[in-house]
């Protein structure tokens, strides 16, 4: 009995964590320990989500943001896998450039937004390009890593069966490296979401990021927190969805 209380199931532990977090937030706000203008209590923030829906075109903005995230992810993933394959295939290029991409992955790429603003203008192209740039490094690195680590014996099996080049790629190399590539894809999708919302906020254009900026400018603090909370929830759902997709894809390789 005591053990089951000390070691609750993960879902119960998660719910309890959020209950404590929101409870402490509510209490601190009501007691005046935190100004309502800085952090209004959850009892004001949560109802504001419905106001976002009615007054701020939540669905339209959500679709706009996630459309841009998917466009950026698609472009970044496609290009990243091609570059990753090239770095794997061309050993000299791999030795020369892999460290660069690792360094780029650690850089705050969102700071490049003025350059992209000049190149593409204040429109969706800038946001998608910035998202795609964020997706590239993890996809490139994980694609190369996945392909580099395909067990040599599986490659030899393919050779003994006289596979064609295309069969060798789609029957052995891709399925064998898919778990690692998918790790890069999940990281890339999260980076894309961060960059897209961030750039929307910075350049005042697009969906959710722009909505957060507008609510902040109007001092609708509860609405702003509700929008942030909504983006966090969407991000969590997004992460869960990619995890399910990964499981499904790995099973159907």
């Amino acid at each position, binding site marked *: 009995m005591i053990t089951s209380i000390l070691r609750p199931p993960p879902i119960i532990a998660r719910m309890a964590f959020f209950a404590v977090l929101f409870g402490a937030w509510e209490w601190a706000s009501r007691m005046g320990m935190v100004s309502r203008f800085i952090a209004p209590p959850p009892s004001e923030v949560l109802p504001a989500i419905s106001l976002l829906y009615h007054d701020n075109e939540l669905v339209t903005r959500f679709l706009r943001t996630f459309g841009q995230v998917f466009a950026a992810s698609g472009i970044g993933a496609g290009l990243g896998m091609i570059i990753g394959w090239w770095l794997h295939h061309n050993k000299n290029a791999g030795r020369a450039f892999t460290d660069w991409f690792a360094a780029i992955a650690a850089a705050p790429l969102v700071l490049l937004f003025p350059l992209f603003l000049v190149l593409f203008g204040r429109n969706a192209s800038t946001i998608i390009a910035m998202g795609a740039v964020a997706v590239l490094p993890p996809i490139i690195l994980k694609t190369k890593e996945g392909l580099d680590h395909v*067990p040599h*014996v*599986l490659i*030899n*099996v393919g*050779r*003994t*069966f*006289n*596979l064609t080049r295309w*069969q060798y790629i789609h*029957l*052995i190399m891709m*399925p*064998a490296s*898919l778990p690692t590539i998918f790790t890069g894809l999940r990281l890339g999708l999260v980076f894309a979401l961060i960059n897209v919302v961030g750039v929307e906020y910075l350049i005042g254009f697009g969906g959710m990021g722009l909505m957060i900026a507008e609510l902040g400018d109007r001092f609708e603090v509860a609405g702003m927190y509700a929008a942030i909370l909504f983006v966090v929830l969407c991000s969590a759902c997004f992460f869960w969805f990619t995890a399910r997709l990964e499981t499904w894809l*790995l099973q159907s*390789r």
Partner: protein
Amino acid sequence: MMHDTHSTPTLSIQNVSKHFETGKGTVTAVDHVSLDIQQGEFISIIGPSGCGKSTLMNMIGGLITEYDGSILLDGKPVRGCQPEIGMVFQEESTFPWRTALDNVAFPLEAGGVPKDKRHVRAHELLDLVGLTGFENHFPSELSGGMRQRIAIARTLAFQPRILLMDEPFAALDEQTRLLLGDKVVQIQQKLKQTTLLITHNIAEAVQLSDRVLIMTFRPGRIKRVVEITLPRPRSSEMVGSEKFAAYVAEIWADLRQEASKGLKETEAAAAH
């Protein structure tokens, strides 16, 4: 060469040598090895670690194409992977993302055989290796011995005329190894499959083979060929027989000298 027959050997290895360039100079892994294998024969190659057994196997299988000498299949020179020669590897080689059935059907899928036909064939082969009922299991759900049987069935699906096995049971415990030896004997007898086995295990070589080739430690040469005249069909029950023990002792007497050389060289290298 060693086998007393006038027919053209199925596989003929003639004066094959392989040298590797290393940081310490040229190393001769295989030195002027010649061997004829007749259709349906089971031959084992045994030797100490580093004697070039696997290198020889990879040359025959076509994974190594740069070597001196020639390899003939039905009297015709071949170099590179051939559909007539199938290989089973020492390492785990099943595809973890495919079920047992789809692993076995893999070469047929690559060869463009329709799904229903390749699955019928894969079912037959899984039955042959004693894995009926495990068709939809993934390799991670099976034991090491079962995974190696899947690898054997997959290679047989390609219907190779010559089956090369590079220490396929090396990672298994002794009991499983003996029982799988029985299974290999049954398959070989049923299919009359020409088979070349690389092994470290003397008992396994005696249990399975018509001839056992003992290789020298570096450079790898054929030191001696021992003809195994134990009656067939054979099984692991023979392991306790007097004649079986005599063959094991005979092979070990030759192998011991080579293994000692290998051990001394390894220790000397470690000391430096």
